[in-house]
């Protein structure tokens, strides 16, 4: 038995040396990281995109020699499916904890992240939130929870200030707003923020409409829109519903002065742009976006597109979040959960292509994170604000 085991160990070592010639000698144990997303259910598209982003990051880290501080240890993903439901996400955390993961990355939707971070906190399991924009996620005093990207508070604030600026520069053509949002934490929270703050910027919020996930008929909502005739329509929802809403608006020939999204699921998506170029034209979005001038982002986009996938925010955000986590494990020099948590909290990670300021974690939130404003112009998604990243002049209001 002993001989057989030794033989297997030696074979494994030999095999890994052959397979990874960059890493000489014995291979240190792989570091297991939970990669948890809603890859089935209503959010399946986004969840699968997130998973792809995380796996590409792991592939890149392993190719470049693994976790250097741990003797080149490879990262091994333990995949989890939250099935688009918070309670399933929390159950997956239990499994991952049992399996001894060093950390968890996930879980796309705010409502799911709220459950998974809480479940992980019980085991002091460090949890990096890849998207999950609801600010409650990082406001509950959970020491294990870290979000590298911006939350919806910052996004809504930046969106409102910029809307005010765009409107003022154009001679204030827009006065009324209609908000359409999905019913879970992300959409409701964003809509509440906007409803409260927009009047301060001189906009009248004519109506706030909530819808379920999934919704397969937006005719009634669009008919209401027709009746109210708002100058600006602000959608805050996930991809499928966003796409259907804008397509129904097009079917029903509703053309507001601007479709101005805050974290719009499809508004700055190359998938939407390719499938419905006419419906997408002119849409403005305040959303996660990469630095368009960074070559690494451009290269990653090419690689993603070579796989016949779309380079959506799910992919590049989760990719960067995984890099942020790997950087912390490297600095922790250990897979100890407390050490990784401390390294995440003190992170100054800067080797990435997101348009962020210096990384500084305050209560688990990266205060350097910010969204960019994009607009679909001439069949492409262009950054319009801020000036440092600008690729095109904004078009506001839409000439239609």
């Amino acid at each position, binding site marked *: 038995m002993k001989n057989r085991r030794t033989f297997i160990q030696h074979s494994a070592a030999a095999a890994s040396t052959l397979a990874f010639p960059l890493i000489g000698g014995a291979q240190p144990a792989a570091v297991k990281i939970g990669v948890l997303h809603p890859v089935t259910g209503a959010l399946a598209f986004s969840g699968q995109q997130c998973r792809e982003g995380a796996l590409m990051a792991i592939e890149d880290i392993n190719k470049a020699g693994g976790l250097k501080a741990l003797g080149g240890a490879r990262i091994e993903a333990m995949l989890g499916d939250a*099935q688009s439901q918070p309670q399933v996400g929390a159950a997956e955390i239990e499994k991952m904890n049992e399996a001894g993961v060093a950390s968890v990355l996930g879980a796309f939707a705010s409502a799911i992240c709220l459950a998974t971070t809480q479940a992980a906190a019980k085991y002091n399991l460090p949890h990096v939130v890849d998207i999950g924009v609801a600010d409650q996620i990082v406001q509950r005093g959970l020491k294990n929870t870290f979000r590298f990207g911006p939350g919806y508070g910052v996004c809504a604030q930046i969106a409102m200030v910029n809307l005010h600026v765009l409107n003022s520069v154009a001679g204030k053509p827009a006065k009324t707003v209609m908000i359409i949002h999905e019913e879970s934490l992300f959409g409701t929270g964003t809509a509440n923020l906007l409803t409260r703050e927009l009047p301060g910027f001189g906009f009248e919020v004519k109506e706030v409409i*909530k819808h379920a996930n999934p919704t397969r008929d937006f005719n009634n*909502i669009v*008919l*209401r829109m027709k009746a109210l005739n708002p100058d600006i329509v602000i959608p805050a929802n996930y991809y499928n519903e966003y796409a259907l809403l804008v397509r129904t608006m097009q079917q029903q020939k509703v053309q507001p002065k601007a479709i101005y999204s805050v974290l719009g699921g499809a508004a700055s998506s190359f998938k939407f742009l390719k499938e419905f170029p006419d419906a997408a034209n002119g849409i403005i979005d305040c959303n996660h976006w990469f630095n368009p001038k960074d070559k690494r982002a451009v290269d990653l986009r090419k690689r993603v597109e070579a796989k016949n996938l779309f380079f959506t925010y799910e992919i590049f955000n989760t990719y960067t979040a995984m890099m942020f986590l790997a950087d912390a494990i490297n600095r922790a020099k250990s897979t100890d959960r407390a050490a990784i948590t401390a390294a995440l909290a003190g992170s100054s990670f800067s080797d990435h292509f997101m348009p962020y300021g210096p990384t500084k974690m305050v209560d688990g939130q990266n205060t350097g994170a910010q969204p960019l404003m994009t607009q679909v112009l001439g069949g492409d998604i262009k950054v319009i604000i801020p000036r440092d990243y600008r690729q095109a002049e904004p078009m506001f209001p839409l000439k239609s």
Partner: protein
Amino acid sequence: MLDFDILFPSLLNGLTTGAVYALVALGLTLIYGVLHIINFAHGASLMLALYGVYLLNTRLGWDPYLALPLMVAGMFAMGYALQRVVINRASHGKDENILLVTLGLAIVMENLALLAFSADTRSIDTPYTLRTVPIGPAMIALPKLIAFGGALAVAGSLLWIVKRTDLGRAIRAVAKEKQGAKLMGIDVEHVYAMSFGIGLACLGAAACFLLPAYYVNPQVGSGFVLVAFTIVVLGGMGSFSGALLGGLLIGVVESIGGLLLGDSLGQVGIYLIFIAVLLLRPQGLFGDRA
């Protein structure tokens, strides 16, 4: 808000949805009218039919409308076999048993679908999914318009079968007086199974009309079956014209309600009407006084 340009499209939208509701309710009311059983597996059967259309489209590339004959035949065969092999045998002639058997069937079907297809919401993409047809100030989605026409055609042929054919006469005879029908030489067991089969065949047709503009997941049937029960009671249990008009009425009320009260409150109107009918005209709009 009460502008014609807004109300009219919402009304048409409701009529098109209502026609499909009517189709689902017609199957339910036929099964009730003849077998006097409330088929709890109706929603789950619709779900299976939707998966059937989905598979034919995604695996074999069949257009959902071309799949109609096969789906109607397939669902008919399934219904006939279910009644003969499972429901009839397990019920031992007791109505309360049948209720439990159909409920059990629904649970089995839903969980089998969960196993086979997971909880994913799936939809199909056809070249006409996004097409619209202008009718006056309204823009109506083409699949919904086809569903409207198709549902009315299927309802028409169902009425023709029941009123004009020997099978229809036998069905009506069994529904009215089982013993008498038996004495006249009608094979009651066969008529039972035929009725159940035709009831499910309606679902096969409904699935073909629904899927181009709708979606399927293992729970999709429950939403329809609740509405269908409401329609059946509203129109009068066992009444075909009641189911048809009730379906259209419910579709319109739901749509206009959604327009005026918002999406989540839209269905309130349906149940208000339902309660009012139960209070004021318990036999239903077109039902015979018991």
